[in-house]
């Protein structure tokens, strides 16, 4: 099996090809066409133990909501987009919004306690836009840029779910 993997980590993005070939009980592993001295075993439902040239790595893995894979190795975190030649379609995702126009989303479910801006207000970067209460704590949502409030989509007292757009700053 051949996988084209786009890996995104602290040091940027790389695209590599991993091949797994059945070999006895395990796999022969090729990285970019070259065989590597490696062994990968799934030791728990979301944990894979990798031995690479004698170095031991424990990889915690899960499916991210955007269709990519989330991988954690110690303090390091990676996101991987796997293109499987077997699949009919890839999973390419472009940026979600145009540059300059910012959707302000609720980072988690909660209740809008206060809207600090209204339609047409000029805002500074880091200025508070709304106060959301979640788990009994009030948190201020701040503007990522200076600009103007183009739309306000929620009201005070309204419950919002994670990812819901609160307002739009242009």
């Amino acid at each position, binding site marked *: 099996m051949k996988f084209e993997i786009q890996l995104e980590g602290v040091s940027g993005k790389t695209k590599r090809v991993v091949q797994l070939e059945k070999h006895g009980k395990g796999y022969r592993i090729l990285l970019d066409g070259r065989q590597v001295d490696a062994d*990968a075993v799934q030791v728990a439902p979301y944990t894979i133990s990798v031995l690479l040239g004698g170095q031991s790595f424990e990889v915690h*893995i899960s499916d991210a909501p955007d269709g990519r894979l989330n991988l954690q190795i110690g303090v390091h975190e990676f996101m991987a987009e796997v293109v499987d030649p077997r699949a009919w379609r890839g999973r390419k995702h472009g940026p979600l919004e145009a540059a300059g126009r910012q959707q302000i989303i609720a980072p988690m479910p909660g209740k809008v306690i206060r809207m600090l801006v209204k339609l047409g207000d000029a805002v500074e970067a880091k200025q508070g836009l709304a106060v959301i209460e979640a788990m009994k704590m009030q948190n201020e949502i701040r503007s990522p840029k200076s600009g103007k409030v183009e739309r306000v989509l929620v009201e005070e007292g309204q419950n919002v779910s994670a990812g819901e757009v609160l307002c739009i700053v242009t």
Partner: protein
Amino acid sequence: MFKKILIANRGEIAVRILRACRELSIRTAAVFSDADRGALHVRLADEAYPIGPAPSRESYLSIDKLMDVSRRAGCDALHPGYGFLAENPALPRACKDAGVTFIGPPAEAMEAMGSKTAGKQLARRADVPTVPGTSEAIDNPEEVQALARSMGYPVVLKAIAGGGGKGMRVVDNDSEFTAAWRDAASEALNAFGDPRMFLEKYLLKPRHIEIQVFADAHGRVVSLGERECSVQRRHQKVIEEAPSPVVTPDLRRRMGDAAVRLARAGGYVNAGTVEFLVDAQLNFYFLEVNTRLQVEHPVTEQVTGLDLVKLQIAIAAGHRLPFAWESIAPRGHAMELRLYAEDPDNNFFPCPGKILARNAPTGPGVRLDEGVYEGYTVPLEYDPLLSKLIAWGNSREETISRLRRALDEYTITGIRTNVSLFRRILGEAEFLTSNIHTNWLDELLARPHPPAEAPRAGTEEAALLAAALWSSRKPDSSAGGRPGSEMDQMSEWKRDGRRQQLDRMP
């Protein structure tokens, strides 16, 4: 001794209490809201009873429902844990009416000491030094603002019924006053059902050091030493340790004496904590009394060798404290980290959700008090505390090394946690030398993050191999099949046949 104890709480503290009960061969009755049917405390308790919908006002804060469960289950005592109703005098009163022993102080002692203003008045009477400020609740924001102006900024607004940093705001100047008052009062109303506030002068760079006291019903009051809780994020304790690196035996004795004096003056019984602010000259000022078991009680347990929950139960049952404890001294060093389901890279927003994988650290000098498990969904309705990681050793240095080692072993995936915050703190020179104060962490977090340590050679390749192996286990990667479910149940023969078929495709 009691036959059956009702645990009027949830999460890690409910688990902590039922463990103590089990060691004492006392049966346990747990309660749970609709959001907590699958919670660990329900699974571990001998008995468990539903008490209503997820919002705590309709479940964990309902005294009527708790009393009803207590009667139906035939409980002879109730432990309130911390938070929820633990410091509400109506609960011990309801217990008294129902003939159930409340494991905590009497209602009168709660009233005399529990609210911040009453505690302050009592402290003045007991000759315990206090921070300048109003000693009574003031309802009128204009009046408070005028007082703040005359006192000089910065000042701090605190909810009368407050705790855990909720309903509390520091005001740096006059223009911030109105907004701060509104936020703090609304937060206090939501969290405690009481919007009343009071005002205090804000001390610069103080340390937060508290004394654990215990009092029996026969007039003996002892101090079990201090806990240093200066590492706080927005007034919420994040790391606690015992003993405090700055407290000398003489200061320990003087602070302990002051705390004992206060507990005596308030007619206190059972476990309580007297919190102090300590300035750079090691002057201490009374802050407030917590009339309950504290979240951070394990660090005191590790340096005294005592089980504070069992001690609470024994005192409630009328037992006496031994004389010898009046001169108890800490042994070694203990430290606790509060692990929360929150995202340190996104302003510490709570991140409830399902825990996919969890590896708990074990080994020498490590203790984990928690209310979660692999596969558990952390509900969004409550405080997102996941676990308390506690380590102890012969010295502060050994304790910190153990915490670092335990953090390396500890994994929770599926949800975001604040583990990276602790890795950062435990590497900071100022923390290692304990050159800290209650704003230290907020100041640290305002500074730019140090660049992430480069991963060791092979890390990226290991991630790639794992991603490939994971994807190979899916029946069709684009369909998002879940390994570990249907694929595991499929016969190896079928699976391999299928694999070979697929491999023939280009």
